[in-house]
């Protein structure tokens, strides 16, 4: 048998399987139902979700977007001056301290304790002005993650691991040469080690250079009584002391200015949780709260696909019956007469059910995601913006997940030859872990474990907003964060499908028809 014949034969058998599929109205209708259920439930739940920000106008404040188009938090205290063209800033950080507000023990009496958040950060920054979301690069010391160089909200490079204290201060230097910014650190101000380089997007000639402090809220996660977890974020702030502050380059004699970037104003006009800075004898003390990071507070587009599980069950049923109906009627013999190379015949069946479900998935997600997002926005919900490629990945990934699950179901149908067993098996392997992991039934670790080792791992393809290790948030499956990267999760699902198909081919070859 030649290679070319093998392909031609597979093409013919696939065409035959497609003819088989489309000539049974129930199966075609089943696919249509899967699409409609996914779209219908998704849009229904989207239309039931409303948000408002209160206040007299009930208009939510605009969320700043970073240079990459992602929603960002950009709130910190900035002591800065203008730098024109190339130059550098050098400082010595002598302390990083902080305060955390705990739940009130006595109502109305604030309970604030000293403490430094792990991701409390203070250091030097070069930023394209003071607008929230503007491009920047910053070199910083952190509460518990050593020296970091970060830029444009999502990028993070680790430097030395040591913390900072009066006894062991840390020198930081950020230089600009053209579009490239380079960060250095030093223990003594003479021997410098490079931390990293950054090219913030579209940095103009004149930028703001200076000192900053920020501190994300204090996150506590408590195990809930019935599985799941409750996360709470409390106010925290950080204070850093700098000396040996030196700015080189075109500063044109301007003076230092203080800016509470992204400060929220209360109805009376006062700043809610203000930061601050003092200068005395060459020592700068800067206090800030908030974070300079991609935003995690908002809905994700894939939430519109809540109806997918119902659609998936329908897809599983159709994919299983696509083969078990042949066993039930004895038609499998006719199929194997037409295609006696059984592995190839099974492959053709898998190709067709995968293609059909992929098309159905594209139709379902392609309608649900944009339409559901539109409904959510119209209802006042804030959707974390993602790029068109991510939208495409969510839609195509949903379709791919359906296709892979259909292949798994088909393989189980071939192995078991009974609809009930195969359908139950496929649901137990794919749908059940996903339900258990994303509802607050299991502890978070168990949920993450399920989403790593079961075929439900492929749902990671739907996650539109990544989890950032440098951003404090509770990245639980319940919140839509999967333990595996999208393509890694998909690879797990594909692995199961391929294994099951190989087993089915083996069984089919060995068994008398």
């Amino acid at each position: 048998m030649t290679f070319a014949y093998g392909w031609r034969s597979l093409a013919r058998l696939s065409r035959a399987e497609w003819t088989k599929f489309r000539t049974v109205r129930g199966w075609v209708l089943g696919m249509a139902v899967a699409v409609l259920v996914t779209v219908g439930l998704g849009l229904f739940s989207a239309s039931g979700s409303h948000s408002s920000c209160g206040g007299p106008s009930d208009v939510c404040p605009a969320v700043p977007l970073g240079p990459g188009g992602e929603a960002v938090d950009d709130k910190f205290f900035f002591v800065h001056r203008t730098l024109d063209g190339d130059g550098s800033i050098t400082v010595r950080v002598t302390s990083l301290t902080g305060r955390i507000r705990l739940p009130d023990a006595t109502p109305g009496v604030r309970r604030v304790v000293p403490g430094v958040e792990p991701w409390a950060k203070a250091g030097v920054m070069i930023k394209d002005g003071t607008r929230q979301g503007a491009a920047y690069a910053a070199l910083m010391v952190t509460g518990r993650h050593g020296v970091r160089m970060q830029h444009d909200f999502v990028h993070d490079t680790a430097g030395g691991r040591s913390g900072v204290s009066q006894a062991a201060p840390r020198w930081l230097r950020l230089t600009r040469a053209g579009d490239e910014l380079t960060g250095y650190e030093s223990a003594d101000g003479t021997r410098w080690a490079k931390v990293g380089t950054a090219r913030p997007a579209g940095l103009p000639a004149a930028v703001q250079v200076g000192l900053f402090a920020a501190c994300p809220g204090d996150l506590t996660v408590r195990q809930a009584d019935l599985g799941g977890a409750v996360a709470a974020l409390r106010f925290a702030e950080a204070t850093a002391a700098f000396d040996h502050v030196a700015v080189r380059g075109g500063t044109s004699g301007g003076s230092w200015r203080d800016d509470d970037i992204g400060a929220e104003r209360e109805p009376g006009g006062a700043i809610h949780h203000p930061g601050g800075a003092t200068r005395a004898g060459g020592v700068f003390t800067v206090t800030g709260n908030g974070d300079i990071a991609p935003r995690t507070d908002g809905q994700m587009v894939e939430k519109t696909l809540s109806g997918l599980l119902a659609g998936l069950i329908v897809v599983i049923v159709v994919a299983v019956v696509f083969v078990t109906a042949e066993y039930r009627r004895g038609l499998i013999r006719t199929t194997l007469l037409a295609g006696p190379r059984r592995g190839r015949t099974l492959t053709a069946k898998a190709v067709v059910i995968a293609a059909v479900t992929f098309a159905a998935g594209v139709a379902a997600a392609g309608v649900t995601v944009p339409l559901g997002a539109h409904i959510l926005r119209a209802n006042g919900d804030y959707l974390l913006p993602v790029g068109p490629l991510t939208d495409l990945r969510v839609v195509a990934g949903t379709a791919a997940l359906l296709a892979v699950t259909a292949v798994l179901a088909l393989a189980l149908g071939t192995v078991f030859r009974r609809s009930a067993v195969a359908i139950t098996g496929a649901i137990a392997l794919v749908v059940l872990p996903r339900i258990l992991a994303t509802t607050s039934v299991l502890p978070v670790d168990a949920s993450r474990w399920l989403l790593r080792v079961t075929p439900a791992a492929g749902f990671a393809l739907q996650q539109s907003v990544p989890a950032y290790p440098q951003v404090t948030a509770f990245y639980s499956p319940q919140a839509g964060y999967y333990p595996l990267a999208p393509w890694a999760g998909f690879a797990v699902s594909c692995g199961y499908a391929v294994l099951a198909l190989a087993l089915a081919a083996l069984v089919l070859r060995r068994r008398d028809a």
Partner: protein
Amino acid sequence: MRGEATIEVNGLRKRFGPTLALDGMSFTVRPGRVTGFVGPNGAGKSTTMRVVLGLDAADEGTALVGGRPYRSLREPLRHVGALLDAAALQPSRSARGHLLWLAHSQGLGARRVDEVIEQVGLRSAARRKAGGFSLGMRQRLGIAAALLGDPPVLMLDEPVNGLDPEGVIWIRGLLRSLAAQGRAVLVSSHLMGELQGTADHLIVVGRGRVIADTGVTELIAAVSRGRVAVRTPEPERAMRTLARAGATVTVSGSDALAVSRSETFAASGNGPLTVSGGEAFAVSGGEAFAVSGGDLLTVSGLPGERIVALLTADSVPFSEVVAQRATLEEAYLELTRDAVEFHAGTGREAVR
């Protein structure tokens, strides 16, 4: 016609648990004739067919179609057309849809599908769901599927099953014409009568092996063993005369002959043919259907012409001399008696 129109089965053995389903099954099906594949239920017909078609694997032996194993055939339906189980249909798929996917699997188009639909007379039902088909219509659809690839070899398992008389006549004509086109046609049945008038050659199986592989004519002659029935009002004289000439004569009683095909030598005209009043003697196209009156003797060892001559010479009256031809059914029962007895028995022998 593509490929060689033969089926060669050689030494097939297959065991299902404790049961030996095939026990050295060997035969060859040749082109240009209809080969009947008969045997009692459980004799291994269907298993053999499934092995030939690559559906079941034999423990031992080979089965070749046109010189090659079925599983190695490219576009197998263009080499072999098979009807195994007419009920094997997706009920919600139309007849045309069923044939269409089969056609697509072999690189054939919708035109060929419409041709075979026409050929089996299903045009008016082609777009109806196969689930609503009668058994006869399903058989026609199954035959259409077998004919789809215009194959040189056809294997049909019990194709007459469920067909109305008109359908039976149609399929007999179809099988004969397919064989006349030079194809090898293997038709299985557990009822020999179904093959009468259709099959040219017979493979009789029992207990998973071939009992007889012979032409239909030869088989009947062998089973008949040259017996002649003689009806006479004077049986004792007749017996004396015939025994003197070396024949073996037994008295069969006075029952009417009930044979479907038999030839009579009686109406030669020159003998003292005595017909008593009121006795019926019906001759129609050389076939005697019902005769009564007088005793019936069964004579073996002498041909019919000689018996007539001897009785005439001795002036023994007789009303009928019939060369007894066994029916296929009788021949079959004779051949398979052992096999059936075996199957009705304890089955102890199967585990040897």
